[in-house]
């Protein structure tokens, strides 16, 4: 870890603007860092040449005192974002050597603002997973380890390459996506900040679709301020995404005033689950105390339909996935496996191209959407979703934000849960409600477990309430003083 790669995005920005460092220098330091952490398998496609050429362009702009809000800052891109002429796979075999002829809106915004692309980051296949173990390119290793135990741990998922690369100082920030917790859970497992914006805040155009009514892009960073800077660039209204909402993008960083006096924070009692580790309950209480000390008012609230969110999610998400993934047919792009007729060609290509978890979810989704079951499963789940949303609507008449743990456990070992889909799904129990209701949520590193692993707390905001969310997260981050480094970095 070099001095340059340990900088926060905002500090690096200040040094670039002051001409203390150059973008090329900063990019080279990150390229070196990427080489040192190859064993983590976080990057599945480094783009070093592109990075250096983008950095050189940034240096020209910076020299003239010009440049956008991310000018010269090296970032990693989850391989779910289509990048023009740069291989995009969603970590699936089925996309083969797919070269997009277009750029996702989110990444286009970032390049227009001057960001430098270091490479494409590993993730669970089509973002389906909580451990990054479903990737066709193999699992990602968490740079964190348990005290005195070298066992490899998962970095969370699906944005596991993003979380591992940010934690291991192999990029200043990374893009990620969150359908049921895929930004916040990996952030919690790696001691990083993960922000899932309101549904409709960032354009989904050019992002490989998983479950379209839930998918939302956001950043993983090492500070709340960095998340605010990244979101300001990533967010936009986009006519190419009909679910993009036409609301202006605020200067999120300006919201970080440090003043949360009078803010009302709800504590939902349903998130206190049986069997939850004592240290997570204690951390949650610690979070409550931090916010109280900063002048916020704590209010006990109830979200009675919380426990229904996960089962409803496992109908809605696979149903939408089965529909979205119908496009992978071996005809228009990706791999093709021949058959005696076109139906056999479809079935062979899809059997060969999709991994086990993706096949499982497509089959569940196809089943719940099939004739005779549509009302019993899909429509029922969408009605339950209304109940979940109404729960939030009701508490948001009384409070501004909600505070919960991000995950029910710390990072687990590679291979521990992969053969038990249901116990893997439980990782998302505290995060999935937020997607079901379309709300913004952020996970910040708040403490260290007895095993020496990071633990996260989650703040949940109101629709398009990212400014308040970031403001409170910033205050909590200051109180938490989380400075621990992954064992891999401390060596």
């Amino acid at each position, binding site marked *: 870890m070099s001095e340059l790669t340990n900088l926060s995005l905002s500090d690096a920005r200040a040094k670039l603007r002051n001409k203390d460092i150059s973008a090329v220098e900063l990019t080279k330091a990150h390229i070196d860092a990427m080489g040192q952490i190859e064993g983590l398998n976080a990057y599945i496609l480094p783009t070093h040449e592109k990075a250096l050429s983008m950095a050189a362009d940034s240096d020209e702009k910076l020299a003239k005192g010009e440049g956008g809000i991310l000018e010269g800052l090296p970032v990693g891109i989850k391989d779910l974002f289509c990048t023009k002429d740069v291989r995009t796979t969603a970590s699936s075999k089925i996309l083969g050597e*797919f*070269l997009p*002829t277009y750029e996702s809106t989110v990444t286009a915004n970032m390049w227009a603002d001057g960001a430098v692309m270091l490479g494409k980051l590993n993730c669970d296949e089509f973002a389906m997973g909580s451990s990054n173990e479903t990737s066709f390119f193999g699992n990602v290793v968490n740079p964190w380890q348990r005290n005195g135990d070298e066992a490899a741990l998962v970095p969370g998922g699906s944005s596991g390459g993003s979380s591992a690369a940010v934690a291991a100082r192999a990029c200043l920030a990374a893009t990620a996506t969150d359908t049921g917790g895929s930004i916040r859970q990996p952030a919690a497992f790696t001691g990083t900040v993960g922000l899932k914006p*309101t*549904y*409709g805040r960032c354009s989904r155009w050019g992002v490989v679709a998983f479950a379209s*009514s*839930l998918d939302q892009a956001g950043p993983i960073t090492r500070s709340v301020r960095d998340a605010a800077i990244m979101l300001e660039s990533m967010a936009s209204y986009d*006519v190419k995404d*009909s*679910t993009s*909402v*036409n609301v202006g993008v605020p200067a999120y960083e300006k919201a970080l005033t440090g003043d949360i006096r009078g803010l009302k924070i709800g504590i939902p009692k349903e998130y206190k689950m049986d069997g939850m580790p004592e240290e997570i309950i204690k951390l949650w209480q610690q979070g409550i105390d931090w916010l109280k000390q900063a002048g916020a008012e704590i209010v006990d609230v109830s979200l009675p*339909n919380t426990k*229904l969110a996960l*089962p*409803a999610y*496992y*109908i809605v998400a696979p149903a939408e996935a*089965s529909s979205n993934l119908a496009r992978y047919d071996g*005809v*228009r*792009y*990706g791999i*093709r496996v*021949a*058959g005696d*007729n*076109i*139906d*056999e*060609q479809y*079935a062979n290509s*899809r*059997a060969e191209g999709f991994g086990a978890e993706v096949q*499982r979810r*497509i*089959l569940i989704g*196809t*089943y719940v959407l*099939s004739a005779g*079951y549509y009302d*019993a499963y899909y*429509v*029922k*789940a*969408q*009605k*339950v979703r*209304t*109940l979940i*949303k109404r729960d939030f609507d009701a508490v948001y008449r009384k409070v501004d934000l909600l505070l919960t743990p991000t995950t029910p456990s710390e990072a687990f070992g590679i291979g521990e849960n992969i053969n038990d*889909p*249901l116990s893997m*799904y439980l990782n998302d129990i505290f995060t999935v409600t937020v*997607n*079901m*209701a*379309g709300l913004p949520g952020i996970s910040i590193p708040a403490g260290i477990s007895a095993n020496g692993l990071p633990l996260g707390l989650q703040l949940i905001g109101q*629709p398009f309430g990212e400014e308040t969310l970031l403001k409170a997260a910033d205050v909590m981050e200051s109180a938490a003083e989380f400075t621990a480094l992954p064992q891999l970095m401390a060596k």
Partner: protein
Amino acid sequence: MAIDQATVRKVANLARIRVTDEQVANLEGELNQILQFVEQLSEVDTDGVPPLTSAVEMTQPLRADIVNDGGYPEQIVKNAPASDDGFFLVPKVIE
């Protein structure tokens, strides 16, 4: 609503995914485990509750009914495993 191996095969055919006998046996167990988990929703009273159709309150945007994109077939077929003169090639579907 438990599903049997015949249903697994039927669904796999609908989803156009080839499955082996061994996979069918495993999938029967895995899919039933997931269906059992989601079954708890059937006990929830949702009478008179409308299904959620959009997570965020918004009106469907409208645009002028004009062609505003296209005209680049070479880009559309660029990633195709087999194409000819701007067309996708597939096995013969009409006898």
